[in-house]
């Protein structure tokens, strides 16, 4: 039994009302969409906030629409399950639909939301535990302690970004709209995250993630997703890999690879511009896989052998390209 701590629950009916509540209570308030991450973390006493602001009633955070320029705008409250069945998402953003379908299990996909997934708290085998368990270890950098149990002597929390939609949206150049009482701002999904597992995104406590905008994608761009996890359902990622490729006439013009479930920030593989102009094929995909492996160093923050995760990185890059239809199967 994991009882929730007492808190005051607010149910604002409009976005301005919600933003003024967040502004008023600051760090003492937690915005809650589906609650599938937040309530578990509250049960584990990871947060000390005394106010929960329920976002369920905010019409401004709902809906999926296509803009005249071809951009797709997704409301932050869009359920994960809706991303898997919405015709516009399935046809225009198939790698996002695939990533959404690989999140958790059916019940949690109905409850959880896109905004909640993007703002998912980082995860670590040493922190996502009951308070009793953590106290036995003396806490850690992220909560109630001064020691990192993953990186001995480490001073920077390396809890893992475990949101499967973020790598996909990063490879597609998506941006999020953040609102506060002071106004709105746009941040790219790639720039939303920072390398600090204690708070790995730049959304301020008084801000809400309102929507995600995926820009019009060039004709011919293909995108794919591959995920490693111990079971095919429920589990958070042990690797979460998204790719996007534009290769008109079979020649690489642009390629992007982002890897999640490493440390606090999804890693955008660097140096991919070197493949520009190459004739696309399995050999290029394998070189990209090898480059990804060189840059990515899975840690013992997830309960899946880091060495093994590193060994299978390149395979999953190839699988993501195959899922995108960019490689012949096999």
């Amino acid at each position: 039994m994991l009882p929730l701590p007492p808190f005051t629950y607010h149910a604002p009916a409009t976005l301005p009302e919600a933003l003024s509540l967040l502004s008023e209570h600051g760090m003492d308030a937690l915005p809650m969409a589906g609650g599938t991450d937040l309530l578990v973390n509250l049960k584990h006493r990871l947060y000390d906030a005394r106010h929960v602001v329920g976002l369920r009633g905010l019409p401004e955070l709902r809906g999926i629409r296509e803009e005249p320029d071809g951009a797709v705008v997704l409301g932050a409250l869009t359920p994960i399950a809706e991303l898997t069945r919405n015709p516009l998402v399935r046809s225009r953003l198939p790698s996002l639909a695939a990533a959404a379908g690989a999140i958790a299990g059916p019940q949690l996909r109905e409850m959880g939301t896109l905004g909640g997934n993007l703002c998912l708290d980082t995860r670590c085998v040493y922190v996502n535990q009951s308070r009793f368990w953590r106290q036995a270890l003396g806490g850690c950098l992220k909560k109630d302690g001064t020691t990192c149990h993953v990186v001995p002597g480490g001073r920077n929390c390396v809890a893992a970004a475990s949101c499967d939609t973020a790598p996909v949206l990063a490879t597609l150049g998506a941006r999020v709209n953040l609102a506060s009482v002071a106004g709105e701002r746009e941040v790219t999904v790639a720039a939303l995250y920072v390398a600090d597992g204690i708070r790995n995104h730049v959304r301020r406590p008084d801000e809400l993630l309102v929507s995600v905008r995926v820009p019009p994608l060039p004709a011919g761009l293909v995108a794919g997703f591959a995920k490693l996890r111990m079971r095919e359902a429920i589990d958070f990622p042990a690797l979460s890999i998204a790719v996007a490729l534009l290769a008109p006439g079979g020649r690489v013009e642009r390629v992007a690879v982002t890897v999640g479930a490493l440390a606090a920030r999804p890693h955008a593989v660097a140096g991919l511009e070197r493949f520009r102009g190459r004739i696309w094929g399995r050999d290029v995909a394998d070189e990209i896989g090898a480059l990804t492996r060189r840059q990515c160093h899975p840690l013992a923050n997830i309960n899946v052998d880091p060495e093994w995760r590193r060994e299978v990185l390149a395979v999953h890059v190839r699988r993501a390209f195959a899922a995108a239809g960019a490689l012949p199967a096999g």
Partner: protein
Amino acid sequence: MPGPREVVPFTVNGDAVAPAVSPHTTLLEALREDLSLTGSKQGCDKGDCGACTVLLDGVPVLACLTLAVEVRGRRVTTIEGLAKGPKLDPIQEAFDACGALQCGFCQSGMMVSARALLDRNPRPSRREIEEALSGNLCRCTGYTKILEAVQVASGQCRPGEGALLTGLDPGAPPPSLASGGGEGSQGPGDPREEPLFPARAGGRGEGGTRAGGVAESDR
């Protein structure tokens, strides 16, 4: 200061109820402790096991991660609501006929998830049943008979015949680990078939891949 208890009206299994709950009371606690509906089980209490699955406006959700104050005015169906008077739901009949339980702790959640599936898809494929029940854990690992019971409940076979519908012999790997099948397959050379780490046993390497195809059968 935590907010005061408030009266939250909603319907459970067709009955109007209005328990007085605290803001931090979960729907599961309200059902079990305030309304004495103990059929929904408290398993992990953190969203891993599915034992507390209920239908909220017909959609399967986890009652342990739902605040009671957030179901105001909504329609909740628990395992107690599946039977209509003395008449059991076909899913309950089938679980009984197939012996689809061992300790029984996961059973209410399994049957509620199965009800949600059959409500939207009266004749699901084996793969669709696996997918619909993939958020419900059975730690006795009695999955074979549970999957068969849903096939029986949907009138697709009789008790004991479920394995025949998969087209697999009992020793064969389950469909999700085999040829990929269905419209989500990448064809004969499906990359998911490639062993990731053949030296290590147990299908571990196959466990996580999610292809980019979005066909239902691919999930």
